[in-house]
């Protein structure tokens, strides 16, 4: 659940750029083997004039029309340019977005990687003809043909922006400074009752990523492609972690408040949350990219198969990834823009540096959220555990 943020104290992240060099190999890029074929859906071959309306599902902060801050408005210029009136429904979580898309009443969605494949395989979203989106050309190459936004080389959306799930801690309590996820797993008992974790089945991937290096005998290669045995090991680790967890967070305000009140002192976070806490200046927090690497999200604008206003949606996908608009969204929301040209348009010239926007190595170190499916998402077979198994496992962990 991510919301709009002012990215006031974004500087805090710069320090940790170096740590990423250590962060292991990546899971993104072109899949090794053929993925299961999704239902065949029609792809647009041309973009005509707008249909006058556009119904979007978006993360709060992605479609600002000046109602939160008068100076933050990229929806009205779009409406003037294209004649498409935008109606936005905010999705609270990825699951929420999947549910909303299933109604078939929307033209598009800003889906995170833990929703995209579910949408693709359920036939809710159509492949995207990237040649109809001129701004796609200059989008960071490492965001194209990822295993979370494409199937067998066919893109199912236009990348919007991305970020990492970092380890956050309160240095006044947590010392020495952690450099490994073991701070929230094997050594979590040091701060018993003050450890926090993300309340979603997708968090199992963080445990799997840690096990990948801490227990090589399990043979985990990709944290989203887990066999039943590997999933069981991750579940056992998370059950152990549960004893030290004070509370889980899914709403960013809850984590901000938990760190500010000292209820939580160490746990997974997003850079924007750290910025928010440091700008409130009640507590000072640090973020770090642990040596095992990090998971992260990469959001993609996808078009519904039942879209009634496909031309407006194509215009929107091109508009939101144009240099100046993508820069505005990224700065408002606090994430790396997908558009490489956006970096020249940000109001803070150091913004792209802070968020490593064009740093391929940093981006490659991130294991982007993707929906686990029975057919392993890394293409290594079809004996993997599916997302529904992860949900059941997560409920067992919560107890």
């Amino acid at each position: 659940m991510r919301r709009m943020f002012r990215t006031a104290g974004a500087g805090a992240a710069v320090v940790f750029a170096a740590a990423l060099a250590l962060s292991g190999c990546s899971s993104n890029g072109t899949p090794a083997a053929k993925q299961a074929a999704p239902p065949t859906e029609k792809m647009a071959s041309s973009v005509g004039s707008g249909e006058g309306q556009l119904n979007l599902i978006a993360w709060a902060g992605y479609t600002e029309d000046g109602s939160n801050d008068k100076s933050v408005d990229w929806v009205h210029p779009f409406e003037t340019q294209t004649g498409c009136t935008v109606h936005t429904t905010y999705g609270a979580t990825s699951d929420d977005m999947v549910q909303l898309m299933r109604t078939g009443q929307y033209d598009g969605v800003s889906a995170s990687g833990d929703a995209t494949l579910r949408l693709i395989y359920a036939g809710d979203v159509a492949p995207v003809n990237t040649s109809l989106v001129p701004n796609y050309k200059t989008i960071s190459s490492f965001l194209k043909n990822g295993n979370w936004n494409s199937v067998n080389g066919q893109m199912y959306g236009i990348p919007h922006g991305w970020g990492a799930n970092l380890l956050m801690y309160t240095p006044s309590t947590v010392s020495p400074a952690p450099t490994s996820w073991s701070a929230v797993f094997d050594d979590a008992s040091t701060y018993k009752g003050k450890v926090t974790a993300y309340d979603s089945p997708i968090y199992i991937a963080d445990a799997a990523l840690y096990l990948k290096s801490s227990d090589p005998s399990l043979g985990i290669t990709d944290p989203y492609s887990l066999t039943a045995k590997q999933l069981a090991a991750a579940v056992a680790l998370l059950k152990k972690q549960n004893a030290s967890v004070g509370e889980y967070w899914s709403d960013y305000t809850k984590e901000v408040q938990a760190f500010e009140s000292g209820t939580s002192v160490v746990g997974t976070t997003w850079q924007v949350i750290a910025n928010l806490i440091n700008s409130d200046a009640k507590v000072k927090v640090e973020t770090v990219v642990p040596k095992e690497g990090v998971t992260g999200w990469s959001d993609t604008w996808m078009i519904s198969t039942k879209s009634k206003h496909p031309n407006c949606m194509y215009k929107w996908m091109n508009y939101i990834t144009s240099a100046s608009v993508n820069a505005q969204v990224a700065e408002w929301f606090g994430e790396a823009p997908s558009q490489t040209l956006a970096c020249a348009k940000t109001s803070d010239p150091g913004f792209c540096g802070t968020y490593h926007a064009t740093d391929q190595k940093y981006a490659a170190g991130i294991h982007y959220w993707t929906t686990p499916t029975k057919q392993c998402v890394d293409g290594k077979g079809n004996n993997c555990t599916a997302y529904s198994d992860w949900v059941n496992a997560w409920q067992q962990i919560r107890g």
Partner: protein
Amino acid sequence: MRPGARLALLLSVPLLWLVVMYLGSIAVMLVSAFWTVNDFTGAVEQTFTFDNIRRLVTEPLFATVALRTILVALGVTVIDAVFAIPMALFMSKVASPRLRLGLLVAVTTPLWASYLVKAYAWRTLVAPNGPIAFITGGNTPGYGLAATVITLAYLWLPYMIIPIYAGFDRVSDSLVEASFDLGASAWRTIRSVALPLVFPAIAAGSIFTFSLTLGDYIAVGIVGGKTQLLANVIYGQLVTANNQPFAAALSLIPLAAIVLYLFAMRRTGALEKV
């Protein structure tokens, strides 16, 4: 218009609503508990199976969570009754009409505030460095089951006080005076005269607090720390896992709990005099 036609016209809309919308949706839920979901597409498949029920019974997680939820619901109900009975008695039999009005307003005013605002207020109150810790020297329940019970008891208290207040109000003053004239003490009068007469009202209030708690999943997310209740599990299966049939099967647990509770209340005779 004939009286019969008028009556039919009057009742048709509410009856339609009750039968189609209300009972109909429950029926759909009951039936869908025996359906299954396609692993690959996530679509619901309407083939009859007992798998969901079997899973409900065999996986210990669900029994644990169900038991925890029912205990929380009973705890909330008992706490609310303990607070509400003396409060309602005072309001209806002791307080002056002016004070009574003031108290009625005070009891119902929290209902004007949003549920979330009140839950988040409790989150601040029970925080480790919050006001409760400050006053008691660090003895705050913290986030967890205790905080959940306290918060829910606070949230549903008006639903307990109002019916009991109405119940006490209906106990005629002459009965109380007669009891005193016959030499009964105040305590004896409450126990032997007032309480049996207001018992149906207490039962009515307890049905509110019990059922509202069984279905709650928001307060526990805000003040419950890492605990989860049955409704969280149902929400997880319905929204996160997109497994509507299993969520429907899980919903049979609170449904059964409420039905059993109503039967227990009926056995005490409470429902006949409401």
